[in-house]
């Protein structure tokens, strides 16, 4: 009974198509229509500006806690644009850009961050789940949806987002394992933004990559430059096609960076170096993409200027709408809604109690 080696042939590919300066590796250039490229760029810029604006509103005390996405626009947009409307998208709590692409109203986001439950409504036909705050728990829902799709013999897929920190939770491993065992049509998009609050990626796991974790579960794993929207797109496209054709799940690790605070309640100066942030500024996903689009003559400085103006007024409109909406909501008795399909008697009487208290205030 000799010792012998089991040949596993595990390798992880790292994909990068636009370099740091936005220069293209033309052999790897994905085939994306001009129209889609322009819409992707617009969404990345819109969500960057919206993110900045929200941070502002929070600092002015007009909103509660929220988790900025700055720096992760490519990792989100590159992946999510590959989905069809009938596919499912399952976010964590830091996918604002991907959510807006999927049709989430910006005004609803503002409402949630300003403490109104109304903002978490999901439109009738939407197949995007609400944000999920308990880290990694949404991954199990995603593979469950994927199982249901397979069971119903449908052709749709699920794309689920999570962070680097999430890879430490049991739920993460349980969901990858389920996806492997049952070959569910689920694409995992890991936003490896290098930090989980104050814990750097290197202290989260001894693994060299996060992508390799998929291999242990029998799934292909790939690492991409998450600030290169073309690389993210290519990997996501391939993964979604695989899932759609019945070949199961893929795990994509997007190597990106959390340029901002963890949430508005966090102070990163306690635990990370500004130099590191500066280094990543040079790899900004938007400016790289703009360089590519300019080289392709799809975008000019003038266009960018116009677009910035357009975005400014769009955001202004959203904020106006938000301010108007807030005036019309907030009835405390509404907290009893949507707890059960039918309100049980004890809630009916508690609701009456709240209404009476309100009248006496």
């Amino acid at each position: 009974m000799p010792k012998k080696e089991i040949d596993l042939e595990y390798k992880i590919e790292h994909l990068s198509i636009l370099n740091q300066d936005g220069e293209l590796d033309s052999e790897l250039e994905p085939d994306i229509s001009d129209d889609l490229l322009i819409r992707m760029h617009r969404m990345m810029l819109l969500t960057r500006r919206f993110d900045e604006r929200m941070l502002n509103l929070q600092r002015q005390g007009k909103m509660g806690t929220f988790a900025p996405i700055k720096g992760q626009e490519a990792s989100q947009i590159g992946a999510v644009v590959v989905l069809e409307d009938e596919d499912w998208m399952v976010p964590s709590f830091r996918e604002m850009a991907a959510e807006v692409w999927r049709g989430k109203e910006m005004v609803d986001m503002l409402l949630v961050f300003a403490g109104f439950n109304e903002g978490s409504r999901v439109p009738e036909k939407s197949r995007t789940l609400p944000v999920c705050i308990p880290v990694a728990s949404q991954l199990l829902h995603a593979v469950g949806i994927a199982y249901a799709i397979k069971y119903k013999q449908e052709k749709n897929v699920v794309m689920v987002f999570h962070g680097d920190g999430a890879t430490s939770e049991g739920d993460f491993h349980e969901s990858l394992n389920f996806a492997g065992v049952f070959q569910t049509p689920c694409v995992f998009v890991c936003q490896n933004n290098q930090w989980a609050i104050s814990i750097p990626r290197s202290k989260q796991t001894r693994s060299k990559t996060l992508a390799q974790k998929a291999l242990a579960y029998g799934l292909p794993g790939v690492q991409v430059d998450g600030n290169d929207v073309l690389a993210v797109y290519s990997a996501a496209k391939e993964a979604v096609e695989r899932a759609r054709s019945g070949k199961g799940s893929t795990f994509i690790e997007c190597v990106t960076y959390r340029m901002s605070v963890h949430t508005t309640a966090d102070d990163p100066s306690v635990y990370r170096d500004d130099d590191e942030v500066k280094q990543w500024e040079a790899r900004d996903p938007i400016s790289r993409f703009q360089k590519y689009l300019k080289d392709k003559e799809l975008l000019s400085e003038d266009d960018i200027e116009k677009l910035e103006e357009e975005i400014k007024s769009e955001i202004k409109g959203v904020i106006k709408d938000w301010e108007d909406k807030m005036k019309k909501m907030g009835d405390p008795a509404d907290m009893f809604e949507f707890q059960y399909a039918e309100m049980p008697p004890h809630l009916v009487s508690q609701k009456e109690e709240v209404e009476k208290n309100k009248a006496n205030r």
Partner: protein
Amino acid sequence: MKKMTMVEAINLALKQEMEKDEDVLVLGEDVGMDGGVFRVTKGLLDAYGEDRVIDTPLAESMIAGVSIGMAIHGLKPVCEIQFSGFSYFSFHQMEAHAARYRGRSHGRFSIQMVLRCPYGGGVRALEHHSESREVYYAHTPGLKMVIPSGPRKARALLVSAIRDPDPVIFYEPKAVYRAFREEVPEDEETFPIGQSEVVREGKDLTFITYGAMLKPTIDAAETLKEEDGVEAEVIDLLTISPLDDEKFTESVQKTGRAVIVHEAHRSFGPGAEMIARLVEKSFLYLEAPICRVTGYDVVIPLYQREKDYIPDVKRILKGARETLDF
């Protein structure tokens, strides 16, 4: 004596216990370099190093589970779960193991650990950051459940919890963390787990409360004195389980009237157990139905409606006056 916030007082307890006993260590998400998201463990990493102040990977079940193992082999872990709303990831370990090893091993193993979590509303946070579900733990045989109401008691109780041979769940009212300061002695102070305290004496009505609800309850008692000429007694439970029913039994037998105030949901909440004990032991002393002023039986709403969910002075007064007028 120095005036401290609850955050500083808990920090002092951790520091002094670590100084005194090498087996005490701290672990959790962001407890090291960051000093915890509420800064409760600030400075501990510098003072005691990475082996004793452990920034763990992100997994609550792991935090609780490895703490159990550490305790089995003689350490005294104090673990932090960032928010009580995420402690359900670790609940399995606490319920299935921390609470049971003593019994399962016929007394051979003690799980001397503390699981600290901030709980309750009041910080304009997102979903899962504001709840008050201490009953999950209080309902679990083998666990102790402690909730301090102010800085001084928080410090004293945490020291007792760390030294307690059984697993203690230590809920910290995050709304109180920095709300006010209290004098906290530099010298060691403990307070017995399983003991409540009469914090205001009165003969007409008994308030029973704990945690973040103590402050509005005392304010309500003061208003009752001024506006109604009523002397209300206020009992701060401090430990939810094992429940000290002696003090409130004695008090209600004197006043004949009881109002229970908690942030937790009403149905099957802590108040339900208190009422059961009162009915069992003081039924014939009651002059009025026992009143509960509590959170409602809904998921705590986001912050715009939070103030309508969490009991406030107005609601406490209304409950008290109905009880007095019965």
